[in-house]
């Protein structure tokens, strides 16, 4: 029962990730693409945690998920600065 719920949530999030990929590819402006990639990053963090609980190896996947969340945040900040000012630094 637990494993079924974890698998259903994991597969649902993967389908939603592919749905968000449509906006990341087609999106009219760069801001739409960055918003879509930001949401894909959050879904990836949650899917990593679900995979860790499915395979019963939570510590390793938890560290990977925390580092991925940090990198996704830095990506959004960098692209936002580039859109606003024209340079990153």
């Amino acid at each position, binding site marked *: 029962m637990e494993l079924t719920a974890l698998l259903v*949530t994991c597969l649902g999030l993967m389908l939603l990730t592919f749905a968000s990929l449509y906006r990341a590819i087609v999106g009219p402006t760069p801001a739409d693409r960055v918003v879509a990639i930001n*949401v894909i990053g959050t879904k990836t963090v949650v899917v990593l945690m679900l995979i860790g609980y499915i395979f019963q190896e939570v510590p390793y996947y938890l560290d990977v998920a925390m580092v991925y969340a940090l990198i996704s945040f830095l990506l959004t900040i960098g692209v936002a600065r580039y*859109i606003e000012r024209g340079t990153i630094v």
Partner: protein
Amino acid sequence: MIATVIGIAFLLGGLFFFTAGTVGLLRFPDALTRMHATTKCDTLGAGMVLVGLMFFEGGSMYLVLKVVLLIVFLWVTAPAAAHYMARAVYRTQGRDKHAGGD
């Protein structure tokens, strides 16, 4: 048993909020409104799924504390990133759009 049921309810609630955020991302007409939908998806959806995971077996107290740390990190960074991105969009595109009307 009751903890498992509560955890599954949290997982399905988080999946519902992720679905709502993705529908908003695909259907809304503007970058700012899409950002409004996806921020709900980030905070409430990810928060509910990670809270639901804490009810399941397979982790010690230390791991539960690290999951709480991940939730707090997501709750701090997702609105900050959305605010920064919205400010960039407003200063580059919104200025031209609002210049004539207002």
